[in-house]
């Protein structure tokens, strides 16, 4: 079932149990290494199984590219923080950038709109909503929380 996108100006909720954290400069060159380390951590903890790896890859890629390029506008002095935590039977990922956020209705085309079908961008969030159990933007879009029920652990 496709989940709704939630957007608020509120600060993100505090995560009960952080199990992995990394802060990186806003450089796309560092994105893949961060993704690989995080995915391995989530596989080792049995938060996901290998069948789901491509979905996690996609969600992480969208989230990190957005944080680095759109949130921090590629400014390498600005940081992106990635935290992995546990909330009950769910894993939770929180990705923070130091940008000004965004307004989904204004800045992201609605992929359900027939006029958007031929656009070459704007599908990332739609795809994330398909797999995740929660997709919430806090601080006006500068903090992203993604969550999903743990597969095996």
């Amino acid at each position, binding site marked *: 079932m496709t989940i709704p996108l939630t957007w608020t100006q509120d600060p993100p909720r505090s995560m009960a149990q952080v199990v992995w954290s990394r802060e990186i400069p806003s450089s796309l060159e560092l994105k893949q290494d961060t993704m690989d380390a995080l995915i391995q951590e989530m596989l080792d903890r049995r938060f996901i199984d290998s069948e789901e790896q491509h979905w996690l890859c996609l969600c992480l890629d969208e989230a990190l590219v957005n944080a680095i390029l759109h949130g921090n506008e590629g400014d390498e002095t600005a940081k992106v923080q990635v935290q992995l935590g546990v909330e009950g039977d769910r894993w939770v990922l929180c990705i923070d950038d130091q940008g000004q956020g965004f307004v989904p209705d204004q800045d992201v085309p609605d992929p359900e709109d027939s006029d958007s*079908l031929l656009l*070459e961008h704007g599908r*990332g969030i739609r795809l994330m909503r398909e797999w995740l159990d929660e997709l919430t933007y806090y601080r006006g879009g500068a903090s992203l929380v993604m969550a999903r029920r743990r597969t095996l652990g």
Partner: protein
Amino acid sequence: MASEHLIVQAYEGVVLVKITKERLLEAPVIAAIGEDLLKLVDRYPKISLVLDVADVGYLSSAFIGKLMALFKAVTLVKGRMAVTGVKPSLMPLFTVTRLDKIMTFAPDAAEVINLYKRKPL
């Protein structure tokens, strides 16, 4: 002219392109593949293009965007294209984004090649 991630074969009016990269996640890789695919549309008038993605295991929405750019370019020159060999695990990415409504997807490249050969543009 083709990037290191593409194998291009053209014969009997059909251009078969195989993407050999498993992970289509890095922006420079996606950009290079996108540019090279568009160059094929310039090189072959009214192209009949078969894009084989059987080796692709991971992709991002940026690649889907490149695919859409390619589809528009092919349509503009009154060509045709099909995407073949999409792994079942990846097919939902194309159905969710409704690309399956406007592009041709087929399990096997050979089947589309034969169809294109039988019905030249």
